[in-house]
């Protein structure tokens, strides 16, 4: 049988990869996808720990995280579309109205 710590390690690696993608990529959509990767890494950690603790409560939390991620994706993509309509660009460095 597979040690649960392997899954936990994979979750850490995925989270770090998500952070790398978030900082390296320059368009808003791919940065948003990187956020989804990080959310999924957290989900994997939750499910691994639910298995380790022998309680399905962790799976319920993951269910809620997936629901909230769906809501977040809908609103976030709407905002990206709105930004694209105004600026004709989705590069992150073009959004600098608030930069001092």
């Amino acid at each position, binding site marked *: 049988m597979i040690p649960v710590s392997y899954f936990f390690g994979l979750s850490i690696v995925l989270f770090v990869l998500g952070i790398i993608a978030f900082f390296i990529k*320059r368009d808003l*959509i791919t940065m948003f996808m990187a956020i*989804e990767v990080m959310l999924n890494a957290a*989900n994997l950690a939750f499910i691994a720990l639910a298995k380790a603790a*022998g*309680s*399905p409560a962790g799976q319920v939390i993951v269910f809620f995280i997936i629901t909230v*991620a769906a809501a977040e994706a809908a609103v976030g993509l709407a905002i990206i579309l709105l930004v694209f309509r105004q600026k004709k660009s989705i590069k992150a460095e073009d959004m600098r109205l608030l930069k001092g």
Partner: protein
Amino acid sequence: MGIFLFSLLAILCVGGVLGLILSRNQAHSALFLVLAFASLGGLFGLLDAPFIAAVQIIIYAGAIMVLFIFVIMMINLEQGIAPERKRWTLGLSAVLAVFLLIELGLAVRGTLGALGRTGGESIGNPTELGRLLFTDYLYPFEITSVLIIAALVGAIVLVKKKEKE
């Protein structure tokens, strides 16, 4: 058998995320992400969570990524944006990522050994999950439905074109 399946799915998953990072084209990135999410669904299945695995495939790899691909089609850039031009920021982010990896590893090192192994009694029974969802977690469940309505209305109001302006 289990360890073989785990290695295969883990490699697919990490490879998918690496493909997301390395590809210039946003549509390709989205497809790589679908691969990563689908293999994560398989990993959830290995961890005795068949219901969450199905939800992961249907909602994440299905619905959310289709939403992403719709938006990519609407925005329709001819070619992707090159990654960060300044070399030193790339190097710096790589170094910081390695540091973060080590830091996270150190932080959970104590717990990792105590986690035990998969197998043993089953916890992923969908009946049990549903009972928990409608008894202990009833209030979060209802609040989530309000959240989804708010997100739906918000998305529609945001994207709607204003009349005569």
